[in-house]
């Protein structure tokens, strides 16, 4: 049931300004002007499934985790995203493959962060 609460995932990135450009221009995120977030230091972005993420500078991240983060991004069309990113020559770690939740591929950003683009599918239908 939709409770009206928007679930926002934090996203800690090195060089957040450049990383934000990468998210928008290469990975297809959209910056949200609507100030849902109460934190003035974060920037709100959304994936194409309407999930929200708030981008912070990596200084807030725990010091013992310096190897880049791993994030699952929901998509409505995995093969299309893969095609666009392959055309853009992004660092794609693996081709789209089938997992129990749907279809997924992984891509690495220039700062070592790993994004899994997952098209969730309903197999009960």
């Amino acid at each position: 049931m939709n409770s009206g609460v928007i679930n926002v995932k934090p996203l800690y990135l090195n060089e957040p300004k450049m990383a934000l450009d990468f998210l928008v221009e290469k990975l297809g995120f959209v910056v949200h002007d609507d100030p849902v977030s109460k934190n003035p230091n974060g920037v709100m972005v959304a994936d194409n499934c309407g999930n929200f993420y708030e981008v912070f500078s990596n200084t807030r991240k725990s010091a013992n985790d310096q190897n880049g983060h791993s994030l699952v991004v929901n998509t409505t069309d995995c093969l299309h995203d893969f095609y666009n990113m392959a055309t853009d020559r992004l660092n794609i770690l693996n081709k789209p493959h089938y997992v129990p939740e749907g279809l997924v591929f992984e891509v690495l950003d220039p700062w070592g962060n790993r994004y899994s683009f997952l098209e969730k599918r309903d197999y009960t239908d």
Partner: protein
Amino acid sequence: MKTFKVLYNQNKLYSEITTEASYTDQRSELSLRAVFNGSETYKIGKRTVVVFPGNFLILNEGTSYDRDIYSNSIANTFAIFFSEKFLRDFQYGFSSSDQNLLDEPIDCEIIQRSTFLETIYPCKGDIKYNLAHLLDHFHENSDDLLLDDYIYHALLLFYRLYYKEVLNKSKRLDALNASTRDELFKRLSLAKDFMLSNYNLDISLEDISAHSCLSPTHLFRTFKQIYSCSPHQYLIQIRLDNARHMLKSTDYTLNEIVNLVGFTCPSTFIKLFKNRFHFTPGTYRNHVA
């Protein structure tokens, strides 16, 4: 409206949206034929097969057929024609890469195949998503390479399905030898196709038996070995699945749907629907679909 495209590698895509069309003496390449709305009738030799949403048909290269669309609602049909070179490359790619064989454990027997059982297959799960995306991109006139990615996945998913629906299931038959088993499986596929094509009519076990060239007793016993249910139970499942599709994607009233899918009694339909999907048809339409 007809849309047709030949891709750079000679794969072809064809979509037709109409209420009435008739094509005789057609000859196919290996092709996958799906219907997203309405229905499409194929006459292949003496056999008549009707493709409804939720299913697709495979035709082998060289098969002659007639194709008809006569539909009250607009039929939305879609076909992929796989070129010989594409098939060869696909098969080579699989048989030559250990990694592929590890990632996609499809029986090597299928990889070597170029002809398949011409029957109706379920368009569910990944292949349903794949075809829906492909059709959208086809109508958007997307780049050939993108369309080709979807066609590759469609074939991959079909091979998986073939392994599951044909090779695995045929092994369940207690037949004496492989050729008897293959022939028996073909006849049981005729029975299945007859039910899928005529689920909306009043059909009996004797009708199914006559169309599959099996005695009623033999049909009943062997059908259960393959599909884990009786022909009658299978027919009920088809009717309920189609009713669910209509509840989700049409404005037909409940009584209209009951008649359209071949039930005679609304209360029996509601009871069976609830048993299968754990919702009444009304609840399903209002809250789930």
